[in-house]
């Protein structure tokens, strides 16, 4: 939680200077984005000219929407992030439950294998994973974009930490009442880990909404391309560079995440915090 000092113990000499610098940096940070917003919402002749009388327009968005199959790209990305999130949640929950509640030979070794993915992620093993997808006959499908990410070391790790804090008395009591392992997991562990699921979910969705290199490699048709790749194809093949339309398309593809971020700012920031603290 945010705590604010009522008075600074070091006097107030520098607050003006500090506030000013903080704001200068803040505005500087928003500048590229503000520029893109300006260009996207004004007619092309004002793309790089600033005038208070410039008329506002949504035409650039309409043009971008018609110029490329963006509805399909949105749909693909939506399917992709939903599929990954669902698979990650289920697989990570099962694995974390095994690690936190069972003692078995080799569990430390297996856990080490899991942690290795935090360092060597599928993102960099593009050549071999492409070969695998070819072999499985999955190339150019949405499933092939998501499959390498279904098992998330990060998710397993986070949930394992959380499950370990659940008092054993709780599940012993449930066992006595005749619940089996799956019921204990579902009725006790999952509800207690809700904030972690939310945190992990937000991080996962924004990561895979934004992912680019692997989908670029493994897809080559409109039917499977996610937004990021669609945007890249759109802005690089469009010969006469029309910045008004490109910035409109760029903002359009980021808009759902940006809106979600503005609406759930606090949860977002706290999720990223929670996910980062180990």
């Amino acid at each position, binding site marked *: 939680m945010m705590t604010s000092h009522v008075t600074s113990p070091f006097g107030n000499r520098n607050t003006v200077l500090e506030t000013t610098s903080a704001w200068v940096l803040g505005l500087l940070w928003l500048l590229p984005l503000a520029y893109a917003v300006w260009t996207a919402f004004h007619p092309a002749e004002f793309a790089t000219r600033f005038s208070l009388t410039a008329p506002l327009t949504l035409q650039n968005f309409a043009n971008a929407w018609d110029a490329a199959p963006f509805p399909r790209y949105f749909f693909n990305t939506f399917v992709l992030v939903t599929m990954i999130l669902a698979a990650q949640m289920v697989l990570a929950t099962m694995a974390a439950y095994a690690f936190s509640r069972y003692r078995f030979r080799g569990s430390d070794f297996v856990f080490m294998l899991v942690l290795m993915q935090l360092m060597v992620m599928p993102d960099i093993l593009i050549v071999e994973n492409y070969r695998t997808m070819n072999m499985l006959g999955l190339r150019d499908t949405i499933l092939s974009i998501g499959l390498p990410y279904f098992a998330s070391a990060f998710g397993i790790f986070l949930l394992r930490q959380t499950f370990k804090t659940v008092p054993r008395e709780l599940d012993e009591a449930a066992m006595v009442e005749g619940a089996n392992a799956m019921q204990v997991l579902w009725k006790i562990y999952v509800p207690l880990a809700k904030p972690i699921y939310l945190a992990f979910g937000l991080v996962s969705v924004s990561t895979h909404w934004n992912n*680019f290199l692997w989908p670029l490699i493994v897809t080559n048709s409109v039917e499977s391309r996610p937004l990021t790749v669609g945007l890249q194809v759109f802005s690089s093949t469009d010969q006469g560079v029309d910045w008004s339309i490109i910035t409109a398309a760029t903002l359009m593809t980021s808009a759902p995440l940006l809106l979600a971020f503005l609406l759930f700012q606090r949860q977002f920031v706290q999720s990223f915090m929670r996910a980062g603290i180990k």
Partner: protein
Amino acid sequence: MNRSAFSLTPWLLLLPAMVLLIGFTHYPAVATIWHSFFATPRGGNPPPFVGLENYAMMVDDPVFWQALTNNLWFALGTIPVSIALAILMALWVNDRLAGRGFLRLAYFTPTVLPMIAVANIWLFFYTPQYGLLEQITQAVGLPSRNWLGNPDTVLGAMIVVAIWKEAGFFMIFYLAALQQISPTLAEAAGLEGASRWQYFWRVQFALLMPTTLFVLINALINSFRLVDHIFVMTKGGPNNASSLLLYYIYEVGFSFWDSAYAAALTVVLLIVLGIVAIVKFRILDRRTHYQ
């Protein structure tokens, strides 16, 4: 519970995650090393074993060395500045500054955007003659510059984008750590007559050390993993001046379709990440416990 005999349940629970994890992380890592000793398969015949030939080619490949050096400069240019800015941002946002909600939003927003979108926006920002940067420099009377078209400035221009994208992300971790520091420490330091600077340097910065190590490791990994912006902004050019290792791997593997050489290059990337991992486990995990 379940301590008695061999139990199948934990293995069944682990099975799906482990199959996928091994299939898309461990197997490809090992297969990469294996295939780096063979030639690229052509026309359905099994590729011949070539020993270290791919690596010999790599040693003689100036583009490889350029991409690797670029990557080191990219890391060196990005990491210290973004960490310093992240600490500054976190201190400001944690303080009782006017409009800190807005500031937090401003600093963090680039983190949420896709790198591909960010790259488009910055490409426009850097555009010669029309871009905002040009308009500003021209208004001040500086000569026109093609920031992305000049081998001397292109890497610097990319570093700025990476800093802009990442500083706000790292800020979050510092913010979380700062909020763990008890305000009584500041009061005590104030009573003892310490200046704000002394308090920051001797108390806050010292207490933030584990966070800094954690951020440092993440930043290092990111600087070798994030290449999306190159696709939009420069395609590695001009003259490979902005190519990074993973981007070069992509080019070799998927533009030149030389999968054997791409495998050898990937081995270098694996070695780099392996070194990072060793540093992490030797230094970081002495302090934090995976329990």
